[in-house]
């Protein structure tokens, strides 16, 4: 059963067709990797899904609800969480406060002027942090965390929105190799437990082939291959795109 169904998504910038007719479906608990050379349209595709950009045409349905053209805040409320290529957290707050802020937003409690926020949704935030392995660092300021830990905090913040679809833009960029494996294993487990669909871009092919259930390859805005990792790896068009003229 597909949670996310994308049909014929397209977006041009001044005559250049950055994304041109991308369609795919993503089921609960499934990890789909979006790969392709620089300029293939991965970022544009991502930004169409999260609402930073409006598509020229096409539809994006999550659990049957249309997302295309909605602003980022609405899309988030409809269940699309994301992590950023370069982590974006609230650096002056503690790890737990970061997650609590998201929970407060989800429960529409952010206008309160009186009750201290630190006591709200504390246990829920702690549980999420425990789940991503950051429970013991809950009191530390985000501004001093190691990069790999920040990625985990981002994951917990995304989960706090209880997403049906998680978008991860280069989730392991800037991390040490060991950390990469751990983060992706965690992501796969979370996707499975929470029946969550995960779409990610990634340059590290070990991560892509190690953790994606399926792979979608873009070149110049168009999908050129989609399928299981082994099939994509063997595809001659994919090899041509990645290796240049020689392959």
């Amino acid at each position: 059963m597909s949670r996310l169904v994308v049909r014929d998504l397209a977006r041009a910038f001044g005559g250049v067709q950055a994304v041109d007719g991308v369609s795919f479906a993503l089921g609960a608990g499934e990890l789909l990797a979006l790969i392709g050379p620089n300029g293939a349209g991965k970022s544009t595709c991502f930004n169409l899904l999260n609402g930073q950009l409006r598509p020229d045409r096409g539809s994006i349905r999550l659990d049957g609800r249309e997302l295309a053209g909605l602003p980022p805040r609405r899309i988030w409320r409809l269940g699309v969480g994301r992590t950023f290529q370069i982590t974006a957290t609230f650096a002056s707050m503690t790890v737990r406060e970061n997650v609590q802020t998201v929970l407060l937003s989800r429960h529409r409690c952010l206008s309160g002027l009186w009750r201290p926020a630190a006591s709200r949704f504390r246990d829920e935030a702690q549980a999420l942090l425990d789940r991503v392995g950051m429970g013991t660092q809950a009191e530390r300021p985000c501004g001093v965390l190691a990069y790999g830990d920040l990625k985990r905090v981002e994951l917990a913040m995304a989960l706090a929105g209880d997403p049906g679809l998680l978008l991860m833009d280069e989730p392991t960029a800037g991390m040490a190799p060991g950390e990469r494996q751990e983060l992706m294993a965690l992501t796969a487990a979370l996707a499975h437990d929470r029946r969550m669909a995960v779409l990610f871009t990634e340059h590290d092919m070990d991560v892509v082939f190690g953790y994606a259930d399926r792979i979608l390859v873009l070149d110049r805005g168009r999908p050129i291959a989609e399928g299981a990792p082994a099939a994509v790896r063997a595809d001659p068009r994919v090899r041509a795109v990645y290796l240049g003229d020689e392959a």
Partner: protein
Amino acid sequence: MTGESLLSVRGLEAWYGRAHILAGVDLEVRPGEVLALMGRNGAGKSTTLKAIMGLVAQRRGTIRFAGHDLTGLPTHRIARLGVGYVPEDRRVFTDLTVRENLEVGRQPPRPGVPAWTPERLCDLFPNLAELRGRRGGHMSGGEQQMLTLARTLMGNPALLLLDEPSEGLAPRIVQQMAAAVRTLKAQGLSVLLSEQNLAFAGAVADRAVVIEKGCSRWTGSMAALAEDEAARRAWLAL
């Protein structure tokens, strides 16, 4: 192994904020040689060049160029020592004309080497001659790439850092770039270029260093890389 190296990088590490991008890059560029820095997207090729140029705030390791330690120097001093940098995203000064862009790059000539002048550069890049009064912002991608290289040459560098010179260019322009790099090499310039396109690297480079996840993994001649299917598969392909 011929002689002393012009550029020697040892154990180079670099960070953007808290992201650890380079974790140990080693490479040598010998005088008159073209070295290709190869690797996938996001492997750290551009960051390596920027770190050499002093454009990354947080870096560690040793970078020696022609007897100078570059590690603590500000960018403009590195440039004046004879390191020319051609960025991937070109960064042509869009408000400035071609002539003015070249003027910004102009530095005093190096002793014993003929100085680059706009005239000589127009011989190397015939397109530029017609475009002298054109603003940088009103040029095609290929023309901008030529201009960026020409602008850097105006500083009379001894070493050229070329970041992905073939990226996003039409095949005809890529051939022109390759020809230009070969001409420069013939004139004695050393070149360190980052490249994903194996064909382009094969056409211009003598040797290659392959990096992955911020570490150098493989070093050898272009010919050896062409034969080493396993290395290509491991570090460059899927």
